């Protein structure tokens, strides 16, 4: 039979390398200032879908909402084994908070139609909110299991998964369809396949193809058969403009402050026996250590 799976992924700025000028004045992220990567736990979600497909068969559609260059994570998804990929991109989607994001994702999923399992990473490293998964599940009116570490059983129209909770785990059984958010404990994502990288090297959206000049397209023999990344705007998914992007976001950024650090004057201690003896005796005399 096989399962119809939809994987939600996000291209994120690599927050491990944030510099001071990475924010725009309106409080949104200046993505251009940072390297963009595949959100790590979304790779775990894709891997989980690939494992299900290997065991049970089925189809994997990867969706992302983002600017035109988010097509990169979709190429990467094709390299790893996705069957179909869709970039949901529109100026109207800019500035979306988690609610407006989940609205657009749910509308795109509705356009795809029938599905058994929606998978996404537990959270994205740029915001760490872990909200888009459960919110998308609510918009689709399906059940959810968040923080999934392991899929224990999948058979017929029923799934059992282990979800991590504080100090332990719980095993939940639910009928399909369902949305799962996957943690980095679930698996180790496979690397891109060399064969697929060759096949999909020039996978692109129609917009990307139109932006290349003929010389480039001719030199790589790129034609319409390379336009395998679908591009959907708000009209394609029948989205209400008022619920998209900044307009559809209840939360507003009031203010952004750079963090000013420096509580106390730092006292420099030499990394020597004398230096440490001074420090340790000071702390002992103040009864900070016993």
């Amino acid at each position, binding site marked *: 039979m096989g399962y119809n799976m939809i994987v939600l992924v996000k291209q994120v*700025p690599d927050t491990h390398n944030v510099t001071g000028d990475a924010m725009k004045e309106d409080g949104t992220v200046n993505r251009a200032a940072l390297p963009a990567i595949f959100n790590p736990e979304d790779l775990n979600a894709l891997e989980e879908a690939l494992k299900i497909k290997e065991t049970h068969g089925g189809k994997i559609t990867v969706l992302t909402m983002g600017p035109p260059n988010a097509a990169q994570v979709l190429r990467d998804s094709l390299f790893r084994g996705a069957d179909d990929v869709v970039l949901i991109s529109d100026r109207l989607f800019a500035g979306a908070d988690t609610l407006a994001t989940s609205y657009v994702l749910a509308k795109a999923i509705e356009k795809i139609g029938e599905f058994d399992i929606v998978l996404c990473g537990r959270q994205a490293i740029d915001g760490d909110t872990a909200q888009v998964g459960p919110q998308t599940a609510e918009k689709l009116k399906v059940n*959810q299991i968040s923080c999934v570490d392991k899929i224990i059983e999948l058979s017929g129209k029923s799934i059992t998964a282990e979800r991590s909770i504080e100090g332990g785990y719980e095993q939940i059984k639910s009928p399909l369809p369902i949305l799962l958010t996957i943690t980095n404990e679930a698996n180790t994502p496979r690397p891109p396949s060399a064969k697929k990288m060759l096949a999909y090297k020039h996978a692109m959206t129609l917009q990307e193809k139109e932006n290349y000049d003929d010389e480039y397209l001719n030199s790589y023999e790129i034609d319409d058969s390379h336009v395998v990344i679908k591009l959907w705007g708000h009209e394609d998914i029948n989205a209400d403009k008022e619920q998209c992007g900044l307009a559809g976001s209840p*939360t507003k950024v009031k203010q952004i402050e750079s963090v000013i650090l420096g509580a106390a004057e730092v006292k420099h201690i030499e990394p020597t026996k004398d230096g440490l003896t001074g420090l340790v005796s000071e702390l002992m005399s103040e009864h900070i250590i016993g």
Partner: protein
Amino acid sequence: MSNNEVWVYVEQNAGKIADVSLELLGKGSELAAKLGVKTGAVIIGDKVQDLAKTLFEYGAEKVYVAEDTEFKNFRSLPYADTVVKMIQEYKPQIVLYGATTTGRDLAPRIASELRVGLTADCTDLQIGDYTKKGKDGEKNYKNILYQIRPAFGGNIIATIVSPDHRPQMATVREGVMKAREPKKGAKGEVITFAPSVDKKHLVSQILKRIQEEKSVDLKAASIIVSGGMGVGSKDSFKLIHELAHVLGGEVGGSRAAVDAGFIGHDHQVGQTGTTVRPKLYIAVGISGQIQHMAGMSESSRIIAINNDPNAPIFQIAHYGIVGDLNEVIPMMIETYKSLKK
């Protein structure tokens, strides 16, 4: 009818109230006092009404109780549905949730259904005014909830507001807020909410639930020795354990160290881990991402050990040691042992 209250969603597990919920009642009653409204606690479960007594002691003036045998364990759909109905009935202006695995599963689902804003992992909550500048000029809002959180890897602190939607909702990690001293014998009003539990929300079956007390209680530790990526390996992390053991402290870790597998999740200090305020915090090989510093900067004394003299951690440290941790820590252990004699 809108009662405009400040609500705290109270998480309980087998009759035990989560610490974070009691902490939030402290903050919630502060906010309610500023707004001149009451503090409400919402509790869902099977036979949980007796817990109301404790909630009054920690700051609730009203306790809204929804009981049903189907509510024995947390499940996303019936719990979310019940909270949504309670919010629709009583219309609080603010609802706060603990950012636990339960709160992070439940709150977004509720926010989506009510189409209201939700801000995750706030490190501070305040009441203030807001001016929205739009196409049609300015609009002023009084007494809005400021939802303050480090954003974007943490180099900035963002103040988020949801001016046009009610309730305003936020999640907060355990340890960020301080519970107030319980007032013995405090009384309040119990409101029972009789939910109609829809069968279609009962599709999740919990087959098994294993939960152990946390292996470490960082919040209660007076000394914490934490390691970061700079420690280099799980093997070198032994030095961190050794120093903590000698000083009688607990072991903490930065998020990077946890992600790298040097130390378990329970030990994570920071905005997305535990917020701590020990007497002494020793940060070893931790460069000082804001999300980490948000969770330890209120420690009474901070010692930073790092081989990079420009590491941001030195800006909040009281004592800075620039050096190789593999040399500094053994020397520190030896010094302590000899002075202790």
